[in-house]
């Protein structure tokens, strides 16, 4: 018996670290259960509910959607240990309709009730996103407005052929906006997501166009021999950072959308691309091969001094920024026979620690959410690709499978 007590005590000691880690992880999350009160359960709706709750970083569900009644205040005894119960009923008689109720698990009292309806059945995922957004808001958690946003992306369909599509963040909903031709590098032009910039290869030289996704009206913003890409849009939408090559050299320019004037920001006889505003600091980060390999640098728009930001890896060829925080992809094998393994790292443009975000597969196209709390990326592993999301605060992550066609660029 003495040995049994020693064993129990030892197990308890070893369990402390794990428990404390779990406690820290769930510290700010509410335990929640989801009950489907629909006549016919819809697997897609269930999966999106669970994904939304998980990636919000504010809820801890048991990963299951339970079957139950919608209307009453009854909470199954097994779910009383949660703090909240979400009950929903999904119907699709004349367009999708989602009714949602939020109950307090302990006594079944109702905290919130709302219905959401659409005429377009394809946009069903946005009903769920909006419902979870509202639940999150009602419970006074930090805003998760990014969950309602469109993702815009381009993908190759054949050599010199592509299409640009919209998706919800889970890629359950997708719709082609520009079909045919070679149209690349879509970038949202405004925070309301009414228009996006993209590069058209319809003419002899690449052209930067802007299209309104609701009216289809297009306008030409700029063109350049060689290449032209809209890499970033200022917070107020009044300026854009371009990668252009009017003299055959890829450099970064800032363009005022009010005057149409362009200011050359980088001057280098090599590759300078992917300029991203560092908040409103008047500085940018960008990718350059000025050390002989692709790496991340920063500079002020109005001055010539350039400083290295990343001191890790030998091929860091994509970056995104939110405030002074940056996320970049680093190729871990640097030769043609070394596979195509890229990993993502989180760091600061002002120095400090670097945090790895991924460890397996090929992880590229990192993009911050509008609030900088989530990182979107594309993962290739084996023969399949997925869109991934990492909640930087809760470390929760999600992957959604994509079709076989190769993603060219993406924006959120």
């Amino acid at each position, binding site marked *: *018996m003495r040995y049994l007590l020693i064993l*129990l*005590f030892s197990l*308890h000691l070893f369990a402390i670290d794990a428990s404390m880690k*779990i406690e820290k992880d*769930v*510290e*700010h999350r*509410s*335990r929640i259960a989801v009950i489907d009160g629909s006549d016919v359960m819809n697997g897609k709706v269930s999966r999106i509910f669970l994904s939304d709750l998980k990636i919000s970083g504010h809820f801890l569900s048991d990963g299951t959607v339970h079957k139950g009644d919608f209307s009453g205040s009854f909470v199954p005894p097994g779910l009383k240990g949660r*703090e*909240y119960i979400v009950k929903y009923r999904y119907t699709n008689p004349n367009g999708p309709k989602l*009714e949602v109720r939020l109950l307090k698990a302990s006594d079944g*009292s*109702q*905290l*919130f*009730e709302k*219905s*959401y*309806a*659409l005429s377009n059945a394809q946009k069903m995922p946005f009903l769920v996103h909006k419902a979870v957004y509202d639940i999150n808001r*009602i419970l*006074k958690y930090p805003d998760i407005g990014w969950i*309602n946003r469109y993702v815009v992306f381009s993908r*190759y369909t054949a*050599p010199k*052929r*592509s299409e640009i599509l919209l998706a919800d963040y889970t890629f359950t909903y997708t719709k*082609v*906006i*520009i*079909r*045919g*031709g*070679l*149209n*690349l*590098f879509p970038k949202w032009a405004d925070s309301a997501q009414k228009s996006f910039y993209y590069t058209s*290869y319809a*003419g*002899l030289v690449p052209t930067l166009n802007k299209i309104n*996704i*609701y*009216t289809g009206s*297009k306008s030409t913003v700029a063109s350049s021999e*060689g*290449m032209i*890409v809209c890499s970033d849009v200022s917070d107020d939408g009044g300026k854009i950072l371009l*990668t252009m*090559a009017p003299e055959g050299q*890829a450099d970064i320019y800032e363009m005022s959308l009010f005057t149409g004037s362009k200011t050359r920001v980088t001057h280098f006889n090599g*590759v300078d691309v*992917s300029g991203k505003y560092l908040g409103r600091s008047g500085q940018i980060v960008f990718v350059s091969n000025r050390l002989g390999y692709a790496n991340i640098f920063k500079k002020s728009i109005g001055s010539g001094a350039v400083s290295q930001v990343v001191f890790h890896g030998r091929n860091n*060829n*994509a970056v995104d920024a939110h405030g002074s925080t940056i996320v970049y992809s680093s190729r871990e094998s640097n*030769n*043609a026979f070394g596979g195509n393994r890229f990993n993502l790292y989180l760091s600061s443009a002002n120095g400090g620690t670097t945090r790895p975000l991924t460890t397996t597969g090929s992880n590229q196209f990192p993009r911050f959410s509008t609030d900088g709390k989530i990182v979107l990326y594309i993962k290739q592993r084996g023969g399949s690709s997925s869109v991934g999301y990492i909640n930087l605060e809760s470390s929760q992550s999600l992957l959604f499978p994509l079709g076989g066609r*190769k993603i060219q*660029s993406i924006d959120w």
Partner: protein
Amino acid sequence: MIKQTVWTAITLTAFFFSGCGQTAPTLDGTKGKNNFTDATEISGDTVTVNESGEGGGLGNSSADGFRSVYFDFGDYSISGTMQSKVSADAARAAQTSGKIKIEGNCDEFGTDEYNYALGLKRAKAVKDAMAAEGVQNGRMVIISYGESNPVCSSPTDSCYARNRRVDLRLAR
């Protein structure tokens, strides 16, 4: 004594795990309130624009008597073995009139804008080499297709090598 110790351990463990729960955010007056509404906020149909008929030009090899120039991995300098192709292309240019389109291409190793800039450097290298052989700069237009225009897609180095190239053709 042992029984008492075991029960104490169980009680402490239960107490410890009960601490993992956390306080719910405070609500103000929405409890039990029926705010059932038909939301119309998620609306607005988007368009689909068809640009299939708009130019751009197909073809993933050189044409009009020009020959493609190939590059090493991650490189944009013209090797000694490729110089003869550039010379042949310059000679071919002398036999033609009108603009020559020089298209830079890359393998699939690379992301986003960097790969397009690399393709552009390759196209620029060929343009400069052609100019050195007497072709007028004003006749040549460079463009990068990045990794968008592969001639093959198998995961072999010989295939990747075929995609790291510059194609030349007469602009139409």
